[in-house]
């Protein structure tokens, strides 16, 4: 009897432990670091597909992006698919969500994915938050991914798996992805609560096809409202006659090594310069080693840590900084100022004035191991120049993090904040 009980417990432990693996060692995989292997070959080895994308329009202003989303919703004729980690309505966002409801009522198929952490939004949004369940009454197909409830505590560490993707597809034609959520602080606030972030809108039938190929089975895995891939058409003509650029797309799932391979490959590809906005840089030792390896090769790496007015997050990151300094890079933090009160939520990597990595992926343990993410590498010197100007403007308002600062910040009192941020940030 005891043996059987032991067997049962071991099996359960294995099941639970299988959800806690790390993939970041792929950043240091010899095949990823090999300078003789081309970027294309590295991505192929990890089944990271290559697509063509047009030159993106970049939105740095959440309110401008909100207006554009509203415009895209109003123009939708067949279907609209959107995914956002945090999404909720508020007084300022009511016109947008009303438009979405109206579209669904008019027969446009609307599929809306929001992560289950949404109702627990602890940002300034919580003072304005209106849950989105009302959208169902209008026929919006709303899915809350991995909801959090007392019953679901049974799922143990699987509760850590979150859908962090932010993208929008309209009628198989319009496509956007980036870092902006669909809540008050991302696209609704009119004061210094509005985050600084970015969204990229472009045309790419190939990428829309990839997204739909992944979305349909993923949706069917979660929902009783099953859908068919053939019911979502792609406008193949939308980019004809437009200049396109090579791009590589990762649809990251929890436990997948793809994002680790992508960022590891980009760091290995760098010849002289890497510029990074990591958002919450809660990195593990493999990630730190990957950046240090690039730095050791003579690559100048600049990384900007946002000033986070949320004390818990800021103190957690400050605790981490002593370890981050082991990367031996130009590690900066934004100066506390009126501007930096608006949280820099952007995620970005620019490599050698040529490659631009965008998407929802924070450069941290959680995004690389425990979340659904999107990452897109765009090979465009023009785009790199454009976003580099933006990065350099941010850089001007930063200070270098010194050894003394790092020593002072790594206190025992900050450790719990670091631990929460590492797995939950």
């Amino acid at each position, binding site marked *: *009897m005891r*043996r*059987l*009980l032991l*067997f*049962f417990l071991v*099996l*359960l432990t294995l*099941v639970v432990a299988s*959800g806690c693996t790390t993939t970041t060692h792929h950043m240091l995989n010899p095949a990823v670091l090999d300078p003789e292997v081309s970027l294309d070959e590295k991505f192929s080895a990890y089944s990271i597909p290559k697509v063509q994308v047009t030159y993106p329009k970049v939105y740095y202003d959440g309110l401008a992006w909100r207006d554009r989303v509203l415009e895209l919703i109003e123009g939708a004729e067949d279907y609209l698919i959107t995914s956002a980690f945090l999404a909720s309505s508020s007084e300022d966002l009511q016109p947008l969500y009303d438009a979405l409801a109206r579209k669904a009522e008019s027969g446009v198929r609307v599929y809306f994915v929001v992560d*289950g952490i949404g109702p627990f939004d602890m940002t300034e949004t919580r003072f304005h938050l209106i849950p989105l369940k009302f959208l169902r009454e209008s026929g919006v197909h*709303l*899915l*809350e991914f991995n*909801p959090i*409830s007392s*019953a*679901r505590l*049974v*799922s*143990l560490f*699987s509760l850590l798996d979150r859908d962090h993707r932010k993208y929008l597809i309209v009628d198989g034609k319009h496509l956007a992805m980036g870092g902006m959520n669909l809540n008050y602080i991302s696209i609704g606030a009119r004061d210094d609560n509005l985050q600084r972030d970015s969204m990229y809108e472009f045309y790419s039938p190939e990428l829309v096809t990839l997204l739909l190929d992944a979305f349909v089975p993923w949706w069917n*895995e*979660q*929902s*009783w*409202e099953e859908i068919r891939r053939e019911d979502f058409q792609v406008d193949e003509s939308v980019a004809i006659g437009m200049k396109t650029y090579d791009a590589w797309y990762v649809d990251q799932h929890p436990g997948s090594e793809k994002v680790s391979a992508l960022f590891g490959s980009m760091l290995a590809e760098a010849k002289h310069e890497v510029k990074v906005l990591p958002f919450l840089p809660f990195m593990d030792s493999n990630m730190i080693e990957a950046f240090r390896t690039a730095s050791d090769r003579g690559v100048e790496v600049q990384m900007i840590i946002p000033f986070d007015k949320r004390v818990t997050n800021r103190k957690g990151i400050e605790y981490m900084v002593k370890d981050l300094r082991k990367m031996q890079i130009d590690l900066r933090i934004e100066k506390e100022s009126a501007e930096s009160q608006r949280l820099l939520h952007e995620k970005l990597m620019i490599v050698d004035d040529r490659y631009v990595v965008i998407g929802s992926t924070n450069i941290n343990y959680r995004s690389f191991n425990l979340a659904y993410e999107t990452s897109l590498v765009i090979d465009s010197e023009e785009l790199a120049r454009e976003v580099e100007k933006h990065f350099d403007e941010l850089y001007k308002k930063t200070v270098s993090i010194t050894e003394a600062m790092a020593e002072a910040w790594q206190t025992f009192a900050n450790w719990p904040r670091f631990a929460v941020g590492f797995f939950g940030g």
Partner: protein
Amino acid sequence: MRKLLLSLVLLVLCTSLSARSLGYGVGFYGQNVEAEPARASSGAEFSLVYKPFLLPFLNPSLQVKNAVGTEMGGEWVAPYWEVGVSVDLIRIIDHPFNFLAHNIIAYTPSVSVAYQYDPRRNLSLASVGFSPFKLSQKDFWYEFFSPFLTYDLGSGELDSWGVNLVRYTFFFK
């Protein structure tokens, strides 16, 4: 018993699993033994579940369960091990309980039959159960107030009856 359990685990591991077909559950049970009221017990019930299909009618699943609880005298016991089949009779999406969940949840009442072994009495039993308040999502089951009866396989007489007050099952693979 061990061979049977091992065979089931091997079957599960060797089968090409579709998404979300393997799960584990935790519940709270109470059981009364007809002939020996002192052996009445209550406590936690743990289960492993394999559901290979998502049929709208008569959807079957394999279940292995173990209960751990305390008897009337306060002694810790494992009153039963169980291997059996549960069948969701019907799947209804449009029902009045949808307000209970974040996402659309299906009403899936189920019946079960199982072989049950009581190690305290070295007794083989047949168990039949009914889960009238079972709500299902593709990755989660919620079950409330599920009664069960067990019969002595030798005599065919009613041996015990009980109820699972609540059982949550999470499908991780």
